[in-house]
């Protein structure tokens, strides 16, 4: 907590938030919202929440702004002017906003201070995690162990939520043509789009590094910030970069729709399957320590570490497939013919 940086970044965030609401051009609103996401990541880093900041970094820089631009590309860029003569509604909305703000300000007074040692959360739960995580699970990054082991149910259902979001996007947007059978494009052949050599060359050089870095984030999540979700988003962002810089069909040639949906299923299935494996071996659902019966040469502590790695891989696969699927559906209106 560095109060000088805190104050400056918060000022910038408030300015960004107001500008995002006030601007009438939707593309500009998406871009200013990207700047807001950068600043949010800075604020979280500066408060010490490194894992949250990593999530914001990967999602904000790689995926969310691109998805906004794709949505604006397929819909409309301007806001319809609102009809005048709604004075009463405006006054009512202002009153409701002020009242909510007042209630929130009153409730804020009851919160414990930042990093207050005598607050209830710091008295009962946190000391256990801080002192016992390394002893229990052999994972130095306690955020990973809390997310994947102690609170494994939460994370599993979050993965299911992401999976459901992908399914909903497919169900709403995807349109199959009946008379034209889908001919898969030949992989690695560049179609005539916008032959921009510089962008293509740099993207070709950078995509392997991005994917390698994503795998590092997944595998190294036990020791540093990161984990399955962040790694999966970065993997998906590398495919989005391919789809933007090369062509829509290039990505479809590497990862077609059937495989994509299958991978999304497989990721959730890995997570739930590890849980059911623990159940079948005679322990509770997602209690990885029982996996030492199956895994060779591991004691109960190392089994928890390996179980976490397994579910991180599942989350990464699911998130990658869902991110690619959402992008492809949004940018082509579900027709899968051409994108940005």
């Amino acid at each position: 907590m560095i109060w000088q940086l805190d104050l400056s970044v918060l000022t910038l965030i408030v300015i960004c938030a107001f500008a995002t609401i006030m601007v009438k051009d939707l593309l500009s609103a998406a871009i200013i919202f990207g700047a807001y996401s950068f600043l949010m990541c800075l604020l979280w880093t500066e408060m010490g929440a490194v894992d949250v900041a990593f999530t914001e970094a990967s999602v904000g820089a790689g995926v969310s702004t691109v998805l906004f631009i794709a949505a604006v590309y397929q819909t409309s860029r301007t806001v319809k002017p609102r009809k005048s003569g709604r004075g009463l509604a405006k006054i009512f909305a202002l009153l409701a906003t002020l009242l909510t703000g007042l209630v929130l300000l009153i409730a804020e007074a009851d919160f414990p201070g930042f990093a207050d040692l005598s607050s209830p959360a710091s008295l009962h739960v946190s000391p256990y995690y801080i002192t016992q995580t390394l002893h229990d699970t052999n994972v130095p990054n306690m955020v990973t162990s809390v997310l994947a082991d102690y609170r494994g149910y939460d994370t599993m259902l979050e993965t299911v939520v992401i999976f459901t979001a992908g399914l909903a996007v497919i169900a709403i947007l995807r349109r199959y043509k009946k008379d034209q059978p889908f001919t898969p494009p030949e992989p690695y052949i560049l179609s005539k789009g916008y032959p921009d050599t510089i962008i293509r060359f740099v993207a070709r050089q950078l995509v392997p590094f991005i994917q390698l870095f994503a795998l590092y984030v997944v595998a190294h999540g036990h020791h540093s910030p990161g984990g399955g979700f962040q790694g999966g988003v970065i993997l998906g962002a590398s495919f989005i970069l391919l789809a933007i810089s090369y062509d829509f069909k290039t990505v479809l040639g590497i990862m077609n729709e059937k495989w994509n949906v299958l991978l999304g299923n497989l990721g959730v299935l890995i997570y739930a399957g590890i849980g059911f494996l623990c159940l079948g071996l005679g322990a509770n659902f997602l209690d990885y320590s029982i996996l030492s019966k199956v895994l060779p040469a591991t004691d109960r502590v190392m089994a928890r570490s390996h179980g976490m790695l397994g579910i991180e891989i599942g989350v990464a696969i699911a998130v990658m497939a869902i991110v690619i699927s959402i992008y492809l559906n949004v940018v082509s209106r579900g027709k899968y013919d051409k994108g940005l």
Partner: protein
Amino acid sequence: MTAVVILLTLAGLIFFSATTIGILRFPDFYSRMHAAGKGDTLSSLFMLLALVLYNFHEINLGNLLVAMKILLIVVFIFMASPTATHAITDAGYESGVKPWTKKPEEESP
């Protein structure tokens, strides 16, 4: 060592200030793009080199890894930032932004 770190950081800040002044004051899109693309890349090189030197105070494996990662950031910024500049300038050219000229008859097409 500390003097070098401070010198490099100040150099980076000076170039960043020049970039910002260029972004704010230049008259048209292309010249602003010129300021943003060049000054940004060079000043990030200076500041990250300063941070590498400051973090590399004693030689061990962890410090070496951190220094390598920061140098990798420099490499990726040097690849990605000019590409982004090129892409944005290309977008402006494709959508027909007129370059700024001093002659008054060309200002109003």
